[in-house]
């Protein structure tokens, strides 16, 4: 750890904290339909859109209607994405002539599911698979809409706590359009131009062939990168224009863009805690959630940064010195960029997995076992540590229900949260959402470990676009590293997809029909089967009348509750997966310290 590294981390924490209140208050005004500074400019456009949709702002939806609207919207978006990807060969803006061959049906399904669920898992190499138009019209649009849909759901869940005796939890279409027009759009335009200023391309020009100074030749692929990059980060999507994602100098050219990108991952999720506090009429409730998230985040970051600074003993033996001039230890530079160095890479990795972003500025697969485990553990805790745009807040509220339930059991009282009695139904829905996530990630991982593909169906695990055809199978499970690390790759893959994160231990060869189809299902289950129980819970809570606080009520706006909440996330999230972590990163760490290699 270095002074400069810690300074950058402190600056990051201060920036996010400073943004939380102003942005959170603004979002509260937007979702409550109160006038804001942008209402005069955007209001008329907004009203025209409602007229075209045939919805009225004042229409309130019950939780079932809200869920159906979300599902219908996601289904139409996913279908359009699938069709655009499959037809990219017949569409314009395709400078490198990609067609359906680069985007077979299984990959197009996996990719459409991935972008419609805010996951942005990419099993393909973008610069060798998708046209410029696919990037813009199919994938980037889903970055906007899936983020806005996540925010809409978060706000709907908050309304469940905020409203009393109400049948409805808001209007999905209104929440969706407002999130897009009032929150994402005004930030993304200056953000994209800032990125261009720093060196991110934004052009429709054809690729340029460069004759290198020392005889090498390069095809420099550009495109409308900045406009995609801005929403990719702000919407916690994470799907790169290039394979190397935010490690690619065209996506993240300078240390400053790197800092701004990390801040933009956390900005909206952090501010939503403040929005929540305002909606339930007690800002301290929001700060309690913020505090629990911040505590978990800082613990993870400290472990990750320390592990990456300490490096790999076997590499130290080769007498390789840290390139950071002020660090005596051997930093782990495999899969990291010189312009960032260790601290901003560890910070990015912790943030992108704590939020459900999944963009990477360094290759998580080459992290030390404990550094990589922090990323994995963040995802396994259902990305509630600030979490995705919207998804983080409703995930944390799910844990809050479990926390007050556990606290209620301990003191023998009926649990309450925000003046609402938490009954059997609410707890059941919260636990259902939790268990669905766990069961999905764990069982797909187990299945991939056994890889039940008979030789006669070997094509199910044929690497798309491989020539000659490369059939992978049970012998390798497609992992890129042997031993415990290979198991971590599989666990990370399904945890990341179920949790709608999208980052990867990318040594896994995931572009085969088997992985694209199973991953696609995991992503859809992880998104919608988590959201629907939570909307049901919200609908039930909204109908309830508040009970006045008594001397026996558990105060949920205190540091004590924040501590309890963080503990519940760790105990529930981490203990569920402890056996799996012991087989993966923990075993690998012991092997690494013993200087074993496989």
């Amino acid at each position: 750890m270095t002074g400069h590294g810690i300074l950058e981390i402190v600056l990051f924490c201060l920036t996010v904290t400073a943004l939380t209140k102003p942005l959170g208050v603004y979002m509260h005004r937007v979702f409550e339909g109160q006038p804001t500074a942008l209402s005069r400019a955007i209001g008329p456009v907004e009203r025209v859109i409602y007229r075209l949709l045939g919805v009225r702002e004042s229409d309130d939806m019950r939780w079932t209607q809200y869920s159906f609207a979300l599902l219908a919207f996601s289904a139409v978006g996913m279908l359009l994405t699938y069709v655009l990807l499959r037809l990219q060969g017949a569409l314009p803006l395709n400078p490198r002539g990609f067609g359906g061959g680069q985007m077979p049906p299984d990959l197009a399904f996996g990719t459409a599911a991935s972008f419609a669920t805010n996951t942005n898992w990419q099993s393909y190499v973008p610069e060798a698979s998708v046209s410029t138009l696919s990037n813009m019209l199919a994938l980037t649009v889903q970055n906007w809409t899936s983020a806005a849909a996540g925010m809409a759901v978060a706000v709907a869940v908050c309304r469940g706590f905020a409203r009393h005796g109400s049948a409805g939890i808001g209007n999905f279409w209104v929440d969706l359009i407002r999130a897009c027009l009032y929150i994402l759009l005004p930030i993304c335009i200056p953000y994209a131009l800032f990125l261009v200023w720093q060196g991110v391309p934004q052009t429709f020009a054809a690729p340029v062939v460069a004759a290198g100074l020392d005889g090498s030749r390069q095809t420099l692929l550009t495109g409308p990168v900045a406009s995609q990059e801005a929403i990719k980060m702000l919407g916690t999507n994470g799907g790169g224009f290039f394979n190397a994602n935010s490690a690619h100098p065209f996506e993240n050219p300078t240390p400053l863009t790197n800092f701004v990108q990390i801040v933009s991952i956390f900005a909206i999720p952090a501010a939503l805690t403040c929005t929540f506090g305002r909606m339930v009429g007690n800002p301290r409730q929001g700060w309690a959630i913020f505090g629990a998230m911040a505590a978990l985040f800082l613990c993870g970051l400290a472990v990750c940064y320390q592990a990456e600074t300490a490096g790999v003993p076997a590499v130290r033996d080769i007498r390789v010195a840290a390139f950071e001039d002020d660090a005596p230890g051997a930093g782990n530079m495999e899969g990291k960029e010189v312009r960032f160095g260790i601290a901003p890479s560890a910070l990015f990795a912790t943030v992108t997995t704590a939020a459900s972003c999944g963009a990477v500025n360094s290759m998580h697969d080459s992290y030390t076992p404990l550094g990589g485990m922090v990323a994995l553990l963040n995802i396994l805790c259902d990305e509630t540590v600030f979490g995705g745009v919207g998804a983080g807040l409703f995930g944390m509220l799910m844990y809050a229900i479990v926390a007050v339930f556990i606290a209620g059991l301990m003191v023998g009282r009926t649990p309450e949260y925000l003046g609402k009695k938490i009954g059997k139904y609410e707890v059941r829905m919260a636990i259902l959402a939790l268990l669905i996530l766990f069961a999905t990630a764990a069982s797909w991982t187990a299945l991939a470990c056994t890889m039940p593909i008979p030789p006669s169906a070997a094509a199910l695990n044929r690497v798309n676009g491989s020539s000659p055809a490369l059939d992978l199978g049970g012998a390798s499970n497609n992992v890129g590293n042997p031993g415990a690390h290979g198991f971590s790759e599989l666990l990370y893959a399904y945890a990341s997809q179920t949790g709608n994160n999208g980052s990867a231990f990318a040594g896994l060869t995931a572009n085969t029909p088997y992985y694209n189809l199973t991953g696609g299902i995991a992503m859809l289950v992880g998104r919608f089967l988590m959201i629907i129980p939570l909307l049901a819970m919200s609908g039930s809570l909204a109908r309830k009348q508040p009970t006045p606080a008594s001397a026996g009520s558990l105060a949920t706006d205190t540091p004590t509750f924040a501590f309890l909440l963080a503990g519940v996330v760790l105990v529930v999230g981490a203990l569920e997966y402890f056996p799996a972590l012991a087989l993966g990163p923990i075993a690998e760490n012991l092997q690494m310290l013993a200087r074993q290699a496989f």
Partner: protein
Amino acid sequence: MIRHLRPALVTVLILSALFGLVLPTAITGAALFLFPHQAGGSLVQLGGRVIGSGVIGQTFASPGYFHPRPSAAGAGYDPLASGGTNLGPTNAKLLRGRHRDHAGGAPDPGDFDGIGDLAASYRAENQLAATDLAPADAVTRSASGLDPHISPRNAILQAARIARARRVSVASVRDIIDQNTEGRQWGIFGQPRVNVLRANLALDGMGSGQATAHPTGTGR
């Protein structure tokens, strides 16, 4: 569900047009007007020919140039195949992989330069003793495979080799390194670093006194 289909369809169409076509086009227009150099990919030209991008690394193998980091992008610094090795810290291939040649001299497709192998070649080509510490960035592959930078220490250790190959003084190469070392951005962010392409252009411009084509406008 059926009555939600109309708003679903219309929303998807409106938002697709707005965020998929209108916005990227408008931002492209603004970007080309405000920052034409960066928007086009920060291309570097020499004698009217594009020789690369100021933000993307490229291969240098001649002894008279600064060498970039090893690269896992395609056959090395291939912008159509960006990425890292994705090999983990207990992978013998990463730690102890050996560069092998077939009997005929053609490279073995299964070969891989592990960190130990890379450190040995780095010490050999720069005439360092086996006990000298090799810079971490010189023996590891970056995440993108297109890392345009090396650490200042890596550049300094290459200075003697470059001076020998170019028959110039080590001090003059050290001057080039000093002139091309970028500090932390705004004094705070990231790491001090040397842009390999820019430093090598400066090497080529040495003595001739001609102005070299520095990548401009990278926003620092």
